[in-house]
């Protein structure tokens, strides 16, 4: 039994150690990699994925999955950009973007809770539907955002970026929601065992529904950051982002089976890991799509590790 236990504990530390090793590795090749400026630059670049992963983390802790988040980001920003071009103000288009994210999250919630479709299939369907919608709205063209956007998106006080701060605030808020409110406790309970949660009389349906709404809203904020950094909304916005978000969450120690993990530390660890990998690969001049590959490999490894963890009891039957 001892081997099992140490293996389990080792796996817990595996990803943080991995992050440290990879960072050191890149630093060896390029010493400025670990400079303060670069680190904060990475925090800035990873703001979009971190925000989206925050929403994903909430869903995964609940024991479910939402692979439509990237598409929600696209639709929200598509709507927002279109409105901006038609002369709407910054504030109203941003608020509307948030509402769109909430609405699309509600659509997911509806399909899953009311129509009782399996979340995996439901969000597969909505991922593709929403992407179609988003591309329809933007006509798959690049929509350039007003200058102010780009400035805002890359605004920084010294080396600390504006979006990093917002991202951290959101992360802390959602983390607090998870850890310190009734809602959050129900989320964890559902992730443990939905049937038991129902049996005890917890408001399961309501909680699942609103979690998807929150994830949708966070997705639109993530989309906002991503578009603002670039200064435009392209049809590539959010593409594959949901897969990376799953990988981020998994690396951050949040189990796909639900009920476990810390949103704050998990998302920080996960998004930092992927950002380090991405910018490191960038530095080395490696193919950017290599990054996509890494995401898939990581999910695989993490699932394998999780399977080993639970496998000792499962393999006996």
């Amino acid at each position: 039994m001892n081997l099992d236990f140490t293996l389990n504990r080792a796996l817990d530390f595996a990803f943080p150690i991995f992050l440290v090793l990879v960072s050191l590795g890149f630093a060896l090749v390029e010493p400025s990699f670990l400079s303060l400026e670069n680190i904060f630059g990475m925090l800035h670049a990873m703001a979009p994925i971190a925000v989206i992963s925050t929403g994903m983390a909430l869903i995964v802790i609940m024991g479910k999955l939402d692979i439509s988040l990237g598409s929600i980001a696209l639709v929200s920003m598509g709507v927002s950009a279109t409105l901006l071009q038609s002369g709407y103000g910054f504030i109203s288009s941003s608020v509307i973007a948030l509402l769109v994210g909430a609405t699309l999250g509600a659509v997911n919630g509806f399909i899953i809770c009311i129509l009782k479709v399996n979340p995996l299939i439901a969000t597969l369907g909505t991922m593709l539907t929403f992407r179609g919608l988003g591309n329809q709205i933007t006509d798959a063209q690049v929509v350039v955002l007003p200058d102010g956007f780009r400035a805002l998106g890359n605004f920084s006080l010294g080396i600390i970026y504006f979006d990093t701060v917002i991202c951290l605030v959101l992360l802390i808020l959602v983390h607090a929601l998870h850890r310190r409110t009734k809602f959050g406790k129900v989320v964890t309970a559902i992730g443990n065992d939905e049937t038991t949660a129902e049996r005890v009389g917890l408001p399961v349906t309501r909680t699942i529904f609103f979690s998807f709404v929150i994830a949708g809203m966070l997705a639109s904020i993530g989309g906002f950051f991503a578009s603002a950094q670039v200064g435009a909304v392209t049809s590539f916005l959010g593409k594959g982002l949901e897969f990376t978000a799953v990988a981020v969450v998994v690396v951050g120690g949040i189990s796909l089976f639900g009920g476990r993990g810390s949103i704050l530390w998990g998302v920080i660890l996960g998004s930092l890991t992927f950002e380090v990998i991405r910018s490191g690969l960038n530095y080395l001049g490696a193919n950017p799509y290599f990054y996509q590959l890494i995401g898939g490999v990581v999910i695989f490894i993490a699932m394998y590790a999780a399977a080993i963890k639970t496998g000792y009891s499962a393999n006996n039957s």
Partner: protein
Amino acid sequence: MVNMITSILNFGRIKTKLSPPLLITGLMFFAALIFLFLNSPEFFLLKNIVNIFNQCAVLAILSLGMSTVMIGGGIDLSLPANMALSAIFGSTIMILTGSVALGCLIMLISGVAIGSLNGFAIARLRMIPFVVTLATMTICGGISVWVTNSVSIFNQPEKFFDIFLARVLGLPLSIYILILCLIMTQIAMSFTRFGWMVYAVGTSPAVCRVSRIPVKQVLFSTYVLAGFLAGVSAIVVTARLGSASANIGNDSVILDIVTACVIGGVSIYGGKGRPFGACVGAVLVVILGNILNLLEISFFIGLMLKGFLIIFFVSLDGLLVKQNE
């Protein structure tokens, strides 16, 4: 209102002996054909019908593979990415060695290998099919782009295109390949031990375990078969497009495959549906695509429509399952 819908569907079911999802599909098919007849009768020219089948050959072959996996209760999101990567591997070998046969063989082997990877993770390691095949899809996609540097491979030997674009009795070879795959898969599912076991496993793995059915092997085999068919479709698609690239495995392909299976009566929950149905579903998806083109409806709205169809059919399926209990 739900009750009203289900009673109408039950009425239809009794009258036509078709299950409600198939009924609706049948109606859609019918409506589509009528629409086409009225609006563009040239659709029904033999030449055009042959063209339609040619168009949907790749989708149909992939859907055959997917239907097998779904009937066993699983799902394989990596099929298009598998096809793309296998096409790339095979084309590269073909160009390097000049041997068409070897290239095609590599495509098939690659398809089987990726399918085996999925099967191993799902059957032996008991991982969740959706997430595992999602990961495989990302990995294959990543490797495809990396290996080709996002550039299509189009200088396969002429002989390759000569063979696979040939026409026999006026019909393109791809249709024969499709028919062959359809017959073999349908026979396998309806008339072999393997097929009956897949249906049983998809219905209830517990009953199978008691009946000494090797559940793990059966599941593994479904993914290998799907991978093999992905390899076959790699050959057909490379010939048709004239090139192999990472893009042939893009997002909308998996959407089409799932739509085709779902409207073809294959249940996502397992144990129901037939490969033939998935083929019919593929044809319908292509026809719907053509109609949308005709109506000049944007591609993206088409995507939305397909997403909607998937959700509709799956919730209908779930509703009926609950009703029967």
